[in-house]
C-alpha cells in the first residue's frame, strides 16, 4: 500500500494541564473507513478537531496526503478545503436556506460558479432524498434531515477526507437509521472517513478499522470483526461489555 491519506503521528493535546491526547498514532488509507470508539472524554472528538486544525497540537504531527498540516507555516484554510467535517449538533446556518447552506463553500471558498454549485447541490439533495427541502430553512427540518443536510454540506466541497463527530448522538433512534444510510452510501462511493461514534452496531457494520481510545491513548486497533469478536485488550473488552449491558436495559 502507498502512503496513507491521513497520518497522525504521536499527537499530544492538553487542555489546562489536563492531557486529552497522549501520543496518538493513526494511519488512514484512501477509501478506508475508520471508527473511533471509546468512553466520553477518551479524546475521540479532540483527535478529529486536531485533524481539522480546529486545535493546534501540543506535540506530534498530522499529515494529510503527505503534507504536514501541523507545520506552523501551513495554512489551515487550505487544509480545511480538503477535509469535510460534520458535528454532533449539525451546526447548519439558521439564516440560510438548505440550498444556500450547501452552496456557500463551493461558491465562496472553491470559487465555482453559482450555477454549477446549485446543480451539484440539487444532485446531492436528490440522491439523499431531500430534493423537496432545498428552499426550506434548517429550523423547519427534523434532526435527521438537518444532519443529512450537514453531511451534504461537508461533501459539497469535494473533500478527500470526511470527519464525522458523533453525528447520530443527538438523534432519535428512528432518525439515526436515515443518517447512517447516507454514510453507508458514501462508503460505497469510496469516501475516506473517520467517525467518532457511540453506535457500536453501526461501527461494526461500516468500519474497515476500529480504534479504541482510552484516556487519550489509542489502546487497540484492528479490523471491525476482530475488535468486536475478540478484543485483545482487557480494557476494550470491559468497554464493549458495558456498552452491551447498557443496551439490554
Amino acid at each position, binding site marked *: 500500500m502507498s502512503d496513507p491519506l491521513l497520518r497522525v503521528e504521536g499527537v499530544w493535546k492538553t487542555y*489546562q494541564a489536563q*492531557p486529552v491526547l497522549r501520543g496518538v498514532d493513526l494511519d488512514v488509507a484512501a477509501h478506508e473507513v475508520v471508527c473511533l470508539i471509546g468512553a466520553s472524554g477518551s479524546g475521540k472528538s479532540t483527535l478529529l478537531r486536531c485533524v481539522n486544525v480546529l486545535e493546534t497540537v501540543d506535540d506530534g504531527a498530522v499529515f494529510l496526503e503527505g503534507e504536514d498540516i501541523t507545520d506552523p507555516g501551513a495554512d489551515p484554510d487550505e487544509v480545511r478545503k480538503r477535509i469535510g467535517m460534520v458535528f454532533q449538533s449539525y451546526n447548519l446556518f439558521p439564516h440560510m436556506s438548505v440550498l444556500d447552506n450547501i452552496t456557500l463553500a463551493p461558491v465562496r471558498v472553491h470559487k465555482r460558479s453559482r450555477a454549477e454549485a446549485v446543480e451539484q447541490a440539487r444532485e446531492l439533495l436528490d440522491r439523499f432524498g431531500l430534493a423537496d427541502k432545498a428552499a426550506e430553512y434548517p429550523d423547519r427540518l427534523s434532526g435527521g434531515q438537518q444532519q443529512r443536510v450537514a453531511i451534504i454540506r461537508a461533501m459539497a466541497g469535494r473533500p478527500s477526507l470526511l470527519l464525522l463527530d458523533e453525528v447520530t448522538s443527538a438523534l432519535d433512534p428512528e432518525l439515526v437509521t436515515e443518517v447512517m444510510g447516507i454514510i453507508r452510501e458514501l462508503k460505497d462511493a469510496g469516501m475516506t472517513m473517520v467517525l467518532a461514534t457511540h453506535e457500536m452496531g453501526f461501527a461494526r457494520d461500516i468500519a474497515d478499522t476500529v480504534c479504541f481510545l482510552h484516556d487519550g491513548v489509542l489502546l487497540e486497533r484492528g479490523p471491525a470483526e476482530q475488535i468486536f469478536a475478540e478484543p485483545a485488550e482487557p480494557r476494550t473488552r470491559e468497554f464493549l461489555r458495558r456498552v452491551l449491558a447498557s443496551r439490554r436495559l
Partner: protein
Amino acid sequence: MTATGGTWVKSERQLERERRRRRAGVRSASLASASTILCAVVVVAVVVSSPGWPRVHETFFNWDEFAGAFPDVLRGFWLNVRIFLIAEPVILAAGLLVALARGLRNPLFFPLRALAVAYTDVFRGIPTILLVYLVGFGLPALRLQGVPDDPAVLGGFALVLSYGAYVAEVFRAGIDSIHPSQQAAARSLGLTRAQSLRFVVLPQAVRRVVPPLLNDFASLQKDTALVAVLGPLEALRQAQIHSADTFNYTPFLASAVLFIALTVPMARFTDHLAIRAERRRAPGGGT
C-alpha cells in the same frame, strides 16, 4: 518521540515548531511596530507641512493657554463626572423598567405598555441637544412646586430621558435574543412568567447586552457636555469662557483630553469583557 501514554517530554519536532512560532511572533511584532511608526510619521508630516499649520499650532496647541485653562476646565469636568455618575444608574433602572413594561402581556397593563412604546418612540426621536433645551428651559417655566432650577440637574434629567429610551431598547433586544426554549424550560419547572423572567431570562439577557450598554455609556460621558448650553460651569463651558478671553482655542483641547481620559479606560474594559466571554465559550474553557 515519547512513548505512547507515558509522561510527556517535548519531542524535537515540537521544540523546533515552538522555535519557529517564536520567530514568527517576533517578525509580526516588528512588522507591526514598523508600519505603526511609518503611519504616524506620514500623518504628522502631512499635518505639520500644511500651509495653515503655524496658525493652528498657535491657536490650538498653545502650552501656556493649556496650563492656564486646565485647572478651571478640570474643575468643570468634575461636574461632568458627577452628572454622569448620577445619571447612569438612573438610566439603567429606567431602561430596564421600560423594557419590562413593553413585555407585559396582561391586558390590564395595556396602558403601561402603550406608555413604554410611546416613550421610546418619542425620546429616541428627539435630538439630545434639543431635549436639553426643552427640559432645561421648559420645565422651570412651568413654575411647578418642587421642580429643581439647577441647570445641571435639569440637564442630567434630559440625558436620562434620552438615554433611558436607548437603553430600554438594548435591554429589550437582549431579552428577545434569549431562546424561547429557556422560557419553556423555566415554565415547565413551575416558575411563573415573572419568575422565569427574573431568574432565567434576565440574567442571560443582561450578560449579553453588557457590551452595547457600555458603548451607550461611553456616548453618555461625552454628551454630558451638552448640558453646557444651559449654563452650568462644566468642562466645555469653562473652556468656552477661557477661549472667549483670549481668542485661543487650546482650552477646548484641554477638555477634549479629559473626556478621552474618561472614555478610553471604558473602551478597554469593554474589550476585556468581550475577550473573557469569548474565552468562556471556547473548548477547554471553564464551564
